[in-house]
């Protein structure tokens, strides 16, 4: 009982049932200029659109006008859901990191995942506010005729799911503070918008066309959609949480487990659809992100977690080391995922050698750079920067290979086919000089040698970390300085 005579339940207000970060974000979000102006602008334009639709309803070109109104209507709704809210989300963690306010929240009882989840949930609620605000206009359009309400609701559902995923991705990626990376992401998104979605949406058919295509999809597609969307959201939020988290938090486990569940879902769809490869291929994209992040994780986090676990009398069991944070665990995880895909390919009767080559080239493109980095500097904490650098060099080599392949046959067949990314580019460009089987053998060798090197350096690095962690005092530290005796 409270001193006021009320029980704790009675003294709680409604907002106490929500996450503190959600309450804070909603307070801030619904007052922000971006939200208020988008909301007002959407209503103004929708109102004008409906008036136009009402005025043109009786014209001889009514059908054509209605199609245009429909396209424009969905385009308008797509802008806040697919552009404005992810745009706000893309600044979410970055703003806090710049203002150094996240650290203040870390010291409370909030975990980093709750922080990131709260930010995303606040944007989702704002999205629902947008959607509930457009419902009256949808119903008005229904009374104007030519609207299938079930189809429209299905489109709205898909649009919402798309918004959930994009917003989660934006919040997760907002943990990246590097200007170059952020600029790269923005350019990629703008390119995608201009090239794809919005071009088709703005011209007559809008999102309707895109989403209607999916509306005719089979049960497996819908099942996979509802299965993979939450996992993708968790993965992206974990990505953000992992990047901002103090080193003592273990995010590798959840990310890798999510990846494995996605992989299992992809395999289930593969078998359920009698060998259709679309689900394992779709799942490969988030898995690629997980693997790249995993192989570049610092081992320091592992040491710190190990120390905390030891204090609690726990340890990392050997069979699940591939889930332990740090690049050695990440290498084993990547090898495991590659092995699963390889097994799937080998059991499929329709598999061509090119498919195996593509898989081995992708895994080689991850393992080879990491092997080079860890052989040169096993303890570097800037592994990801070097990884990106090597990828850029390989990409440039790939472009050179393609140019040579167009002009000189022999130049392309030699050195470049030993390197994963140039080999992949030559393969995709149909410029392989030798036989595919020979290239497969080369990639098997590249993968095997990289893996052996990584496992050897990984074991040494892990042992070193464990040794450092087992005593609070590393060997290289100076002599212990005695503390002054306690004063009474």
């Amino acid at each position, binding site marked *: 009982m409270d001193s006021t005579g009320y029980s704790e339940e009675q003294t709680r207000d409604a907002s106490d049932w929500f996450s503190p970060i959600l309450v804070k974000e909603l*307070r801030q979000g619904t007052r922000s200029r971006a939200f208020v102006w988008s909301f007002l602008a959407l209503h103004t334009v929708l109102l004008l659109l409906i008036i136009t639709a009402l005025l043109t309803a009786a014209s001889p070109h009514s059908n054509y006008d209605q199609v245009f109104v429909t396209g424009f209507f969905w385009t308008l709704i797509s802008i806040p859901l697919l552009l404005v809210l992810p745009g706000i989300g893309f600044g979410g963690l970055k703003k806090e990191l710049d203002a*150094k306010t996240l650290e203040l929240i870390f010291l409370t009882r909030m975990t980093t995942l709750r922080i990131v989840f709260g930010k995303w949930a606040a944007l989702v609620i704002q999205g629902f506010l947008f959607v509930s605000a457009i419902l009256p206009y949808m119903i008005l359009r229904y009374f104007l005729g030519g609207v299938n309400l079930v189809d429209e609701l299905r489109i709205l559902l898909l649009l919402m799911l798309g918004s959930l995923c994009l917003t989660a991705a934006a919040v997760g990626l907002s943990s990246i503070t590097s200007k170059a990376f952020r600029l790269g992401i923005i350019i990629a998104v703008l390119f995608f918008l201009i090239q794809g979605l919005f071009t088709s949406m703005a011209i007559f058919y809008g999102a309707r066309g895109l989403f209607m295509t999916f509306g005719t999809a089979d049960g497996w597609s819908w099942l996979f959609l509802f299965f993979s969307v939450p996992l993708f959201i968790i993965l992206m939020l974990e990505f953000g949480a992992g990047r901002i988290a103090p080193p003592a938090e273990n995010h590798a486990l959840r990310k890798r487990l999510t990846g494995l569940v996605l992989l299992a879902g992809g395999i289930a769809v593969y078998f359920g659809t009698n060998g259709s490869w679309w689900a394992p291929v779709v799942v490969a994209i988030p898995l690629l992100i997980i693997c790249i992040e995993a192989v570049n994780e610092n081992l320091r986090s592992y040491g710190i977690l190990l120390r905390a676990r030891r204090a609690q009398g726990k340890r990392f069991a050997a069979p699940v080391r591939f889930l332990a944070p740090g690049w050695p665990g990440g290498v084993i995880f990547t090898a495991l995922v590659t092995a699963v895909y390889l097994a799937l390919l080998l059991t499929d009767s329709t598999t061509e050698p090119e498919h195996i080559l593509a898989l081995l080239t992708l895994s080689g493109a991850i393992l080879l750079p990491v092997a080079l980095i860890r052989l040169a500097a096993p303890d570097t904490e800037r592994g990801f920067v070097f990884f990106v650098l090597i990828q850029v060099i390989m990409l440039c080599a790939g472009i050179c290979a393609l140019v040579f392949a167009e002009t000189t046959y022999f130049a392309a067949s030699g050195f470049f086919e030993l390197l994963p990314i140039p080999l992949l580019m030559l393969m995709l460009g149909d410029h392989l000089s030798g036989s595919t089987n020979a290239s497969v053998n080369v990639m098997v060798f590249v993968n095997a040698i990289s893996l052996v090197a990584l496992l050897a350096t990984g074991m040494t690095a892990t042992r070193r970390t464990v040794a450092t962690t087992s005593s609070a005092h590393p060997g290289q530290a100076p002599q212990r300085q005695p503390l002054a005796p306690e004063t009474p």
Partner: protein
Amino acid sequence: MNSVSSLAVVRDLHRSFGPTRAVANLSFRLPRGQVTGFIGANGAGKTTTMRMMASLDIPNAGSIEIDGVDVLEDPSHARRSIGWMPDTYGSYQDMSVWEYLDFFARAFGYTGIERKRRVDEVMDFADLGSLSDRPADTLSKGMSQRLCLGRSLVHDPALLILDEPAAGLDPKARIEFKHLVRLLAGEGKTVFISSHILSELAEMCDTLLFIDEGKLIHEGTAESLMHGDAPGVAYAVEIAGPVEHLEEWVALRPDAAVIETRKHGALIRFDHIDPAEISGVLKQLLDAGIRVTDFHREQRRLEDAFVEILEKLNANGAPSNT
């Protein structure tokens, strides 16, 4: 080890950033209910040490125990005892002062009336009542510091770690802030406060820790530092007329020496003299025909003490305790 009267115990702390060693073999205790000052030049390792204590950074080696809990092994438990006030932080847009504190109270697990009461208590303590509805990002530096102090007190921690809290404050705000720190000490809180402005810390701290290049170079009270361990008592003497007369008079006395010549006088150290009999020295000065215009005992400035400690350390290579 008996940790009853120490709230925080730091042992053999090391932290390196690549080849740069920020903290090296640092050990100290924070006595319960006392204000401890943490002094060092910019880049000496103060913020790094405090961040590690606040569980925001992980040392390469060593241990930190706060209220009996190891910060590295159980950071979430240790955080309940820590109130952290960083040197710089941003505030939130579109959020009032009350909402700002309310958010942190929620994040610390307070609900309902208890939360409101806690926020009101903190607002009262930090004198933020009149700013309740003001947007948190429009406050002056002094108000912001009070708000940040209030935030660090929301969960009623036993230890307050304040990193350069008075930096950038105007004199009035500094005085207010010092007053708040003393109030906290009066309430039994252990306060660990850093600054590179030594005089500021001397007024509010019970103990001072000096750090340089990541190492603890001195630990003692402000009183002991200001008096120093040099023999004798220093007096500042100002005269009307040439300073040479004063210097000649000092030269004739075996128990006195000029420490520093000043524009209208000198700082003189008198050895083997009882401060109660100093009036006799003044009389001798006047009898010698020196027209004394000012005569007072001068304490060492903390800055001088700090420099002296550094010089000693360079000469001997050993940290000191007073």
